[in-house]
């Protein structure tokens, strides 16, 4: 099949960008979306032009490195799917496909489709961990974790930190990302001692990075390639408010 691409090209963080049009020809439906871009890049290199820069690594939907807004939807049209696991069989011959980077104040564009997501690491630094020095752990079965709690914690922990939630949110909020980590850790008995500090400090860090607040649009859940539920945002709101009445909050 042949498709037309409109791709955001931007040479550097401080330069202005714009859309450029490319023809992707001889595309087969078993190609992944990124493999389709690979072939476009091969043809650009052959013509002596600069290939399109885009982040990617594992290409199996788990590292969270890839992320393109495809026809206005972060990670494209397939639900619960990262860009790297999107296949060309979901497109038709003759389609025009618009490809943009994540758009958010807190994710500045570095080049073409690559954005800077280091803000996410800084949110984790504010409390997205359980303080447990190597070697100080007790036997793993000492603390039983009810299966439904472990499962729910895992539902949150499955977040890959790609940033699609931010790209999808009209407010550019990182609440789904932040809540997924708080939810993962606060649900578990091991995470309880630091639960209130974690919730408050991570949300404060999120706001300090320039992400917006949550106003319950639900776009984040719809765009999330791991289908992390916005229920975790509700859970975190409770944790956040509870902190101010808790004895163990500093």
């Amino acid at each position, binding site marked *: 099949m042949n498709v037309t691409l409109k791709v955001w090209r931007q040479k550097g963080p401080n330069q202005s960008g714009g859309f450029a049009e490319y023809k992707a020809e001889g595309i*087969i439906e*078993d*190609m*992944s979306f*990124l*493999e389709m871009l*690979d072939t476009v890049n*091969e043809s650009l*290199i*052959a013509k*002596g032009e600069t*290939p399109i*820069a885009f982040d*990617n*690594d*594992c*290409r*199996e*939907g*788990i*590292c*969270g*490195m890839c992320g393109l807004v495809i026809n206005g939807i972060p990670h494209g049209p397939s639900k619960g*799917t990262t860009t790297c*696991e999107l*296949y060309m*069989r979901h497109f038709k011959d003759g389609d025009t496909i618009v490809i943009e980077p994540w758009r958010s104040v807190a994710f500045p564009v570095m080049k073409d489709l*690559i954005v*800077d*997501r*280091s803000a996410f*690491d800084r949110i*984790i*630094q504010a409390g997205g*961990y*359980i*303080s*447990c020095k*190597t*070697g100080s*752990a*007790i036997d*793993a*079965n000492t*603390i*039983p*974790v*009810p*299966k439904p709690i*472990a499962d729910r*914690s*895992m539902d949150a*922990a*499955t977040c890959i*930190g790609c940033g699609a939630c931010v790209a999808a949110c009209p407010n550019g909020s990182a609440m789904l990302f932040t809540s997924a980590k708080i939810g*993962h*850790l606060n649900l*578990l008995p*091991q*995470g309880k001692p630091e639960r209130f500090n974690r919730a408050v400090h991570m949300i404060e860090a999120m706001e300090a990075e320039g992400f917006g607040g949550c106003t319950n649009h639900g776009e984040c859940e719809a765009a999330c390639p791991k289908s992390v539920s916005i229920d975790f945002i509700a859970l975190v709101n409770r944790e956040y408010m509870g902190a101010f009445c808790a004895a163990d909050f500093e």
Partner: protein
Amino acid sequence: MKLDAKIPPGPLAEKWDNHLNSIKLVSPANKRKYRIIIVGSGLGGASAAASLAELGYDIDCFCYQDSPRRAHSIAAQGGINATKNYPNDNDSIWRLFYDTIKGGDYRAREANVYRLAQVSSNIIDQCVAQGVPFAREYGGQLANRSFGGAQVSRTFYARGQTGQQLLLGAYQALQRMIAAGKVTMHTRTEMLDLVLVDGRARGIVTRDMVTGDIQSYAADAVVLATGGYGNVFFLSTNAKGCNTTAIWRAHKRGAAFANPCFTQIHPTCIPVSNEYQSKLTLMSESLRNDGRIWVSKKPGDKRPPNDIPEDERDYYLERRYPAFGNLVPRDVASRNAKMVCDEGRGVGATGLGVYLDFRDAINRLGKKVIEERYGNLFEMYERITGENPYEVPMRIYPASHYTMGGLWVDYNLMSNIPGLYVIGEANFSDHGANRLGASALMQGLADGYFVLPNTIGDFLAEHRPDGLTADGNEFRTVENDVADNVKKLLSINGSRSVDSFHKELGKIVWDYCGMSRNKEGLQKALTLIPALREEFWNDVKVPGDNEEINQSLEKAGRVAEFMELAEIMCLDALGREESCGAHYREEYQTPEGEALRNDEEFSYVSVWEYSGEFSKPIFHKEHLQFEFVTPTQRSYK
């Protein structure tokens, strides 16, 4: 070259404890005066960086991705082994040790493997304390499942995302230490060379992948945790960025490379579907717990799988290996898949595939149970192939997955270069000629959490901080080498893209140094690779400049190193005139087609020393002594 493995004396079960009691310590007040460089932020690198920082050392940690959480450990699916014996199925440290040594076809060190089994339990404790949401039973206790090469259930797992959860645990510990100011994280930064001062590893030279700046960092010790070199095959289950540059550059600076030909081809990957494919996706080995592998008894059978009646199916693993059935080790499963495909019985459009069928498991347990166990893997399969594995058997085929070979290290995980440590997949130490499933996560974390933080102190105690900075001549010289190399790649301006070279190299290595090897093929590869390398350096086209994000330049640098590595892989495979584990030489097989080891002549680690660009590397042997187990012909029948 002097290779002293420094295996502690004494009974196997006491070696590690005795060693811990005898090595030197650095006092808490002095630890902060030391700086340690850690390259890589996967399970090994992140766990080491966090643990060493907690001890008080100052750490510089480097990764090429935009965040340490992206390291490819994240993609490990199935699980992590440990000797908890929670299922009461008679597991023990000895059994995990024995399974690992046997699974590695008796080409690993007994002492290292025993230590790995010893610390495996601590890893589970540590990870649970960090909040890794492992699968649980209804009573709240941890759940286990079984994996290839073992007859006990010792594998802990978090759905099909165990690597992700373990890595996030280590990543979070690392972020905690970054926030504490003990770790300086350098993302989007690639190590391009190692710096030695007076014969000791004292720093690295990196390229900032955003600005192109070439910069040096100095330290009291350097730890490489940069993973394996499976991407030499171009198509592999590794992430696209995984590369051999750090360990290969260290090799060229004097670090010995061990067992380069021991590369694992994983049996259960989604088959190649087209020539544009950029990567292969693993389907976790855990699927072999419930899936049954088969092909038609008739060659060239083009019927849809569900139309092939039961008595015309050949469940070849169950037939040939009744004791282990579908759970034979990876090398055996891969080789058998290749054999049935070579007989013309392969499935799918290319004929390079076998069925992995869940029909019987779904009938026995119900779709819901299967969905709970493997749901995310089934979804992934359907996304990639467009086929529903609940209704049609999966098609799978082996793919490059893991490299047992790597830089040579002693029992302390130090290479032959003083002060250069190598951990995780980047070293060669624990898996012999074949790694068992769910053991890579175990080794990465064992090295990073429990081995290195102890053993590195022994070295540092003897090498006090001397205030070395990255301004000296040794650093300038290496920086210049790195800058020259970048300039050269950008200036060739030939006609072929980097990927086209990488694909061609991968095909050579896959055809002649892949699942099975023979003398003639390896000799052919050894003429093809240098010719391709020469063409690369004359005709590669790398667009753009250094002073920007330039993904073609990054790839070109990596492929240039793979070109050199591929050659010693083939040399190593050629010299090892036996079959063992994943190294299958067609000339050396039993009448049943199993790997035929030759312990008389080849019970050693092959160790290669770099000797210059145009001369053959120098070959050394580290003889393996088996004091506690008796190597036998591996049998899974």
